[in-house]
Every structure is written in C-alpha cells, then in structure tokens.
C-alpha cells in the first residue's frame, strides 16, 4: 500500500523532467496513444452511452496511463511513478464507504453502480463560488443545510476580511479560512442541522498554511467532516498540496481530491478528457491518499459541464469507475447560465442525470461558471438534489433520451448564456424562499421535466 512517505520517496527519487516536457511530451501524447490503442470513440448522438465495453476499456486505458506517465511533482521536478501492481492494489484497497457527519446527519457515503436505485450522496452548495459578505455566506449555507436531501455542505468562499480583499498565503487568507469554518458551522446550527458534514474544507484556504491553521478544532471543523484538496492538472502535485494531505491524514479526516480536466486542454477532446478524468481517480487515491474523488471536468470555452461532450465525459467516467472499482466518486457540475433562468436548471439537471445514472454521486453546483460573486442561490443545488433522487435507478438508455431532450433546450445558448439574477435579487433571505419570479421559473421548469418523465417535488 502506497503511503505518504512512499509518495515523498518517489517525489524525491523519481525521474527528473521539466514540467513542460511532462505535460506536452509525456502526458499529452500518451493520452492520445491510449485513446487510439483502446479505440475509445466519442459519439455525439449518445451523450449518455450505453456501452459497458467502452467503460471497461476506458478503465484499463486509465490504469495503463497512470502506470506509464505517473504523477508529476512540481516541487522536485520529478516523476512520481507507480507500478501496475501498486495501482491495482490501491484500487482494491480504496475505501468502499466512509462515514461522515454527526448525530442524525451521520451517514455512510458509498460508491454506487450503474443504474443503482440507491439515492446519490448529495453534496450541495456553492462549490467554492465567491460570496461578497458574511451575510451572503450565512444566507447561502443556511439554505443549503435546509435542503432535505443534503448529505454534506460545500460552502462558498469568503473574499474579504476586515474590509480588505483576501491576499493569498497572507494573514488575511488565514483569517478568512478560519471564518469560513466558523460561519459554515454556525449556519448549519441555525437551521438545526449541526451534525451535517462540511465537505469542501476549506474553500477559502488555497494555501497549505491557511488550510492547516483553520483546521484547529476551536474553529469547529471535525474529524467527521471531509477534507478537499485540489489536484493541479494534469496529474500534478507539489509540496504545498502534500502538506495539506499530511495535515488531513494526521487528523484522520477523509481526503477528497478534486480534479478538473479541461476539455480542450492537455488531454485534448472528449475521449482524452474522459480518460484523463478516470486516470486522475487512480492517481488521486495514490498520490493524494484520497478516500473519495471529486471530478469536475469543464469545457474550455463554456467553462461549464453541461454541453454534449461533457455529459459524455461525465457518464463514461462514472461508468468506468463504478463498473470496475468501488472508488467513491462525486461529480461536481458547473452551469453556464445563472440563477432565475430555466437554462441554468436544465443544465444542472442534465449533468446530474449523467452522473447519477452512471453510478456516481454528485456535488452541485458551480452556477454561471462560478465567476460572479453572489451569483448563486440555494435553489440550484436543491433542484440538483431533486433530480438526483428522481433519476436514481434510471437506465442509461432512458437517461440518454432525456439528456438529448434537455440539451435541445439550451445547447445553442452555451456561447452566450443568460447571467440571470444574483442572490439578493431572486432569493428572499427573510422567508428562506425564492422570489416570486424565480418560483414561476421553477414551476415552468418542473412542468417541462415532468413532460420528459422526470417528476420532481410539487413544492417550489
């Protein structure tokens, strides 16, 4: 079993190579070589493919890829190599379930299978999107915690402390990360769900020092929360990330490595991006010592994950992982459109549909590419959760049909999506509900979903 000291040993002793050579001359060509070798082919007509052999080939190609390119440590400029035996052992020994949360909200997060009727784990919130103030942070997190399906919270990121915008790796970032922990717990307490796990600890802490500082128990983080550490694309790590890993391991908190391969980036098109996505899962359980993985593949142009190619990437990744391993994986989706627009709700529905039917759980949602402060509300993750529960158990064939119909509603608008309205404009914080206008949008959206055969809750 590869442990953190083994990772360090490999990072210090591995083959030396420049970062540019690793990315351009080792990783990128090898991805394309494996795509060809395993005859992996994207089919635009079937954004949710129903082809088990494609998924299985994808998984084997990913094992080959990790064995042949390894990971890359930017701090030592060396390759971290893994043998096929180490990779397969890590897959076999990856946790089948982890227990998160406290009291009534203590639940088991397990891997799922294709067509699984078990509801997905719903990690709901802002996916680290920026918020402008403590007030909007609390409004959002209270809203997320109130969603009945919420299994875990993904908080927004705090951007200001003491009236000053946060600077990286500075006292401002450390204070912001501490505030992130305190306010997240406070918001859950306020709505009576104090036991719910915070799973993106801590979105405000980009640096290792802020991460470690804010995990002091006095700020409210617990061992039963989950510790998210972002991988550098492609397959890269540095000492700052390994410092976070070592800190989380010492606390006993389950690490979730997040990774966001870019369609159009180092792995190329849909086939390469899906392969890279699966390979990152395997690299993550080794290098980042992860108990769960959070993939968030994104389109280079749209900066979202709802287009046709990305639905295919999400689905094939999910099928490859869930058919061939018990690795716990939650897909994080991004929309192009903003709150209070039908497009945003259709986009998140399509991405969640692709993930859940392929055997993944999910995190939802980065709204409007997570670009704008406060451009998100508790409605979008609530809708994602309703969809996630409604489509659990659906066949890939039926899901594909629905995905095509959903795509027809927004595909042509991805290049210039509507930004919608911000938190204050379409969420009534006092009454903890959407604005009248947003309610009308939701009602019409739910009617459309019912027409597609996806029946969501009556209430708005």
């Amino acid at each position, binding site marked *: 079993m590869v442990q953190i000291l083994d990772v360090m040993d490999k990072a210090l002793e591995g083959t030396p190579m420049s970062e540019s050579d690793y990315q351009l001359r080792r990783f990128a060509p090898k991805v394309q070589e494996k795509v060809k070798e395993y005859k992996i082919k994207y089919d635009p007509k079937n954004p949710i493919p129903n082809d088990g052999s494609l998924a299985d080939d994808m998984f084997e190609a990913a094992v080959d890829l990790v064995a042949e390119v390894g990971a890359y440590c930017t701090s030592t400029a060396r390759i971290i190599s893994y043998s096929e035996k180490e990779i397969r052992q890590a897959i076999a020994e990856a946790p089948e379930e982890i227990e998160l949360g406290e009291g009534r909200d203590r639940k088991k997060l397990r891997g799922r299978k294709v067509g699984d009727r078990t509801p997905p784990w719903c990690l709901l919130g802002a996916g680290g999107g920026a918020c402008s103030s403590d007030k909007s942070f609390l409004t959002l997190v209270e809203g997320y915690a109130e969603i009945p399906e919420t299994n875990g919270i993904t908080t927004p990121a705090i951007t200001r402390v003491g009236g000053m*915008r*946060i*600077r*990286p790796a500075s006292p401002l970032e450390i204070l912001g990360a501490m505030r992130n922990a305190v306010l997240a717990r406070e918001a859950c307490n306020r709505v009576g769900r104090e036991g719910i796990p915070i799973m993106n600890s801590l979105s405000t802490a980009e640096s290792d020092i802020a991460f470690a500082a804010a995990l002091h128990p006095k700020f409210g983080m617990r061992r039963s929360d989950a510790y998210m550490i972002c991988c550098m694309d492609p397959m890269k790590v540095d000492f700052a990330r390994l410092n976070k890993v070592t800190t989380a391991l010492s606390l006993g908190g389950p690490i979730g490595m997040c990774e966001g391969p870019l369609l*159009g*980036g180092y792995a190329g098109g849909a086939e390469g991006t899906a392969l890279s996505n699966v390979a990152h899962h395997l690299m993550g359980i080794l290098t980042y010592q992860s108990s769960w993985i959070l993939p968030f593949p994104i389109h280079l142009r749209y900066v979202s994950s709802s287009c046709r190619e990305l639905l295919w990437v999400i689905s094939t990744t999910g099928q490859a992982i869930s058919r061939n391993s018990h690795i716990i994986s939650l897909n994080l989706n991004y929309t192009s459109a903003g709150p209070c627009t039908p497009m945003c709700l259709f986009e998140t529905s399509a991405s969640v549909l692709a993930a859940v039917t392929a055997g993944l759980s999910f995190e939802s949602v980065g709204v409007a590419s997570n670009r704008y*402060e406060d451009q998100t509300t508790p409605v979008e993750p609530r809708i994602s959760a309703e969809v996630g529960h409604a489509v659990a158990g659906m066949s890939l064939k039926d899901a594909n049909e629905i995905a095509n119909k959903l795509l027809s509603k927004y595909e042509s608008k991805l290049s210039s999506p509507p930004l919608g309205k911000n938190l204050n404009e379409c969420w009534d914080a006092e009454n903890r509900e959407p604005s009248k206008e947003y309610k009308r949008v939701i009602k019409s959206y739910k009617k459309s979903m019912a027409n597609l055969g996806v029946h969501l809750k009556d209430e708005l």
Partner: protein
Amino acid sequence: MDEKKVQKALSNAILSYDSGAAEKAAKEAIRLGMDPLKAIEKGLSPAIESVGEKFEKMEVYLPELMLAADAMRAAMSLLLPLIPKGKSVSKGTVVIGTVQGDIHEIGKNIVSNMLMANGFNVVDLGVDVKTATFVDEAQKSKADIIGASALMSSTIGSQKDIVDYLGSMKIRKNHAFMVGGGPTTGEWAKEIGADGWGEDAATTVRLANKLAKGK
C-alpha cells in the same frame, strides 16, 4: 534550398509542432542570407496564426498550440537578433504571468501562446509571480502590456496589488494592464483600475491589440 523552400520549411515546422525542424529551417534561412523579417513574416507568422485559429475553433487543443509556440520560439531565437534595430515584427511586448499565491497555469498558458500566435512578443513569467516581479520585468523589457491571471477568488486581490504598485512607482502610464482568470469580471477590472478584462483567450488577444495600438 531556395528562399521559397525555406519559407515552406519554417511553416511546416510550426504546423508539425517540431522545434528541431524550426531551428534547422531558421539556420538554413540564415545560411542563405535571407531577410530575417521575411523569414518570419512569410514563413513563421502565417503558420502560427493558422494554429491559433484552429485552437480557437477547437480543431486542435492546448498541447498542439503550446508545441507550435515552442517551435516558433526556437526559430525566433535565431532570427530575431539579426533584425536591424528600429525594425520590428512584433505588435508589442506583453509580460504575462499568474499572480502571487496562485499556481494555476492553463488559462495563462493559453493566453500566452495565443498572444504569441497573434504577433506579440510574450515574456511569460510563469505562475506564483510576485507583484514586484511583474513590474520589474515589464520595466526591463519595456513592455507595452502587463497581463495578470488569477483563478481563485482568494488570489485576484494580487491583481489589484500590481496596478497599485505601478501607481505607487509612478509608472502606471508606462504599461497597459489587463486581467483575466476564472473569478475575474469586467466590473472587477474597472474597480481595480485595470485597462481591460480578457474573458477568454480570443477576447484577450483583441484587447491586447487595442491596448498596444492605444499606446
């Protein structure tokens, strides 16, 4: 090999993403006594522009764009020193990097290589670049533009530091300043006093063209 063939060889080297071939063709151009400006303008530039256009249409992806830019750099490093003073093939110089505390490089790499593909001289400082380094390098290379990328809401504050530092040094007017990256917006650029916001690579190139002309 005659000049036409050398031009073709330079072009082919870029289109086949081959730094070795680009260097070889540039050496051949020099051996023939070819005008280096002509070698660049007729051989290299149309080819790198073509790769940039294909990337924009997603007909090729980031590795191809970056390898083509590597090949371009290999040839340019031999040809540029031979260009007489006062003559220029560049639309302007851009000093670019990802801000202090941020190690995200993909967006910056895309913009850096697209600027190069569109005729700019690019000084790429990499990631996690200190505020003073942006300014020092811009001064040193007499850059027309400084471009700062940031991908995290916790790191975009460093973009403000650059524009503030330029102001404090009383050299704000020496360099246009543009920002980009995931959480940045036009409003943010305006708020901090930047000269523009690049929403994506294509708009950043258009912005750089405008800023370079405006100087």
